[in-house]
């Protein structure tokens, strides 16, 4: 069953047609990669899924419900989390505090005025945050300033912050951009582990073919705002159209 259904989505910025009748169907508990050359509309599409942009036409359904017109925090509360190209974390806060926020967001919803409770007394929230830090191997760094973490650890923390909320769908925007090969492989490992351990669907935008072919169950190739092909990695590898539009350029 499709968890995410994108139908005929178009988006125009002035004279630029960024997306043209994009259709996409993501099956539950799979990894779906979106690839394409620069300017193909990958990030625009992702932004349409999380409420940052509203498409001009078309519809986006998540678990049968439309996400269009909803704000990012509402879409998150529906069960979609997003990892950014450059890790977005709370740099001024400690690693543990970073983990507390998503747990509070899941428990309390979009807004709750609780100025006379005490963070220290919220045992359940702290335990849940600590369990997630353990799971991602960051428990020993819990008192560190998040801004002073290495880039790889920031990425790891951001993923932990997304996953502690138990989202149904995780969107990843170039999770390995700017990483050395060793770190890239570690990230692939991490994502594989997550797929094994949890009931989760992932949509990955990625430039690195190594990452895409190691993880993806299905691949959609975008070019000039239009989906070119959608298929399994094996078939994409040898696809003439793809070679021409994307891989061919690189070779």
């Amino acid at each position, binding site marked *: 069953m499709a968890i995410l259904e994108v139908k005929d989505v178009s988006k125009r910025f002035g004279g630029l047609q960024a997306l043209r009748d994009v259709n996409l169907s993501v099956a539950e508990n799979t990894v779906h990669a979106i690839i394409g050359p620069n300017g193909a509309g990958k990030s625009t599409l992702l932004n349409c899924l999380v409420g940052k942009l509203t498409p001009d036409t078309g519809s986006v359904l998540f678990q049968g419900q439309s996400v269009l017109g909803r704000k990012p925090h509402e879409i998150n509360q529906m069960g979609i989390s997003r990892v950014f190209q450059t890790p977005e974390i709370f740099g001024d806060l400690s690693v543990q505090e970073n983990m507390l926020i998503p747990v509070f967001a899941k428990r309390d919803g979009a807004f709750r005025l609780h*100025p006379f409770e005490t963070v220290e007394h919220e045992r359940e929230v702290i335990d849940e945050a600590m369990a997630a830090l353990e799971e991602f191997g960051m428990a020993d760094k819990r008192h560190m300033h998040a801004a002073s973490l290495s880039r790889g650890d920031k990425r790891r923390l951001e993923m932990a912050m997304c996953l502690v909320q138990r989202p149904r769908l995780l969107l990843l925007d170039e999770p390995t951009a700017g990483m050395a090969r060793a770190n890239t492989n570690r990230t692939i490992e991490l994502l594989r582990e997550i797929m094994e351990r949890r009931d989760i669907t992932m949509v990955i935008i990625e430039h690195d073919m190594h990452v895409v072919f190691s993880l993806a169950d299905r691949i959609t190739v975008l070019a000039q705002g239009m989906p070119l092909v959608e298929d399994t990695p094996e078939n994409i590898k040898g696809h003439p159209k793809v070679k021409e539009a994307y891989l061919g350029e690189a070779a």
Partner: protein
Amino acid sequence: MLGLNKRDTRFLIIVILLTLFTPFLLQPFPEESALAQFNGGYPDLMAKIAIFGIFAMGFNILFGLTGYLSFGHAAFLGVGSYAAVWMFKLLTMNVFPAIIVAVLVAGLFSAVIGYISLRRSGIYFSILTLAMAEMSYRLAYSVLTPITNGETGLQVRDSDPRILDGADAAQYPNLFGLELSQSWKLELASHVFTFNVGFYFCAVVAIVMFYISLRIARSPFGLVLKAIKSNQTRLNYTGMNTRPYTLAAFVISGMYAGLAGGLMAVMDPLAGAERMVWTASGEVVIMTILGGAGTLLGPVLGAGAIKYLENIFSKINENVLHEWFAFLPDGMEDAVIWLIARFTGEGWHLTLGVMFMAVVIFLPGGLVEGGGRIAAWFRRKPAAGAGAGGGDGDGDGDPEHHPKPTPRIATLGD
């Protein structure tokens, strides 16, 4: 105690003691000595410090925790004052209705201004609040004269209805009959200490407000405010709506300002538009930054430092300087006095400016950071001494080498 952990409880107790003993702390010099000039222990100044401390504490919730720099908080102070004076005119000279209504009216007013201004963040937010406050000031000064009494200012008159007060009720602000202007003087070894009802009333309110801001800073709500300052994008994509949080912080800090305005009216029952002018908004920004934005005690220290120095420096006029430097040869005396006079008396703002620049450049964390550095310096010295002496292993028993750690204001206040 009171829902605080051990460290915060100790912190609160230190603050309570400091506040209650202010009449002693600010009066360190004997009455007849040459240094009596620098005594600040008179009720008017001490109450001002407590009131501006409350103002700065509230401002810090918005600026220090949430990261929104408002340039219009004096508007809420002014609104609080007007509301309090109106309560004095209409209801009673008892202070409680006045300050409660001052807080509520300022809260309502800040909800409106906050709702509009918080549509933007960063510099645009600051400009919007500045514009709103300036508009409020102009309205209070002219258009709303029937409510604010324009440039004359709102005053309490004998002819006011005061429907809750009987015929023989007190004519001055009072706590159920106890007049706030009452003072007791204590003479002790040529020192004179003044204990004033008004100051202690403001001090108790300030302690309560400090406790509230401490609780807010330690709450999940306070954590979310810090997260807003740190990264709004992540917070939105984490499922929290930043708008109601920022509005709540804005209204809370507006209510603190309204309370401060109400207390000003309590100490001196009149209200004028000049309380809302933009330099008054700037003053609280300077207090907060000078003391240490984002720390709990910093804004209060900043308010205290500025109000104390303002009073002391403004009093030093050329006559005083002539007395001080009479020992110098004539030409030199005039030169020295001319130079120092630029920084004292009416020129005190120059001193404030220099001080502010020095703090921003050398102590970006404000006075609190300065305190922390001094404390660290004191801690390091004995440690180095013990190291040089060969080290005495588990020397917890030796008080010489292991003095009690000084209260670490900087870390307590973070």
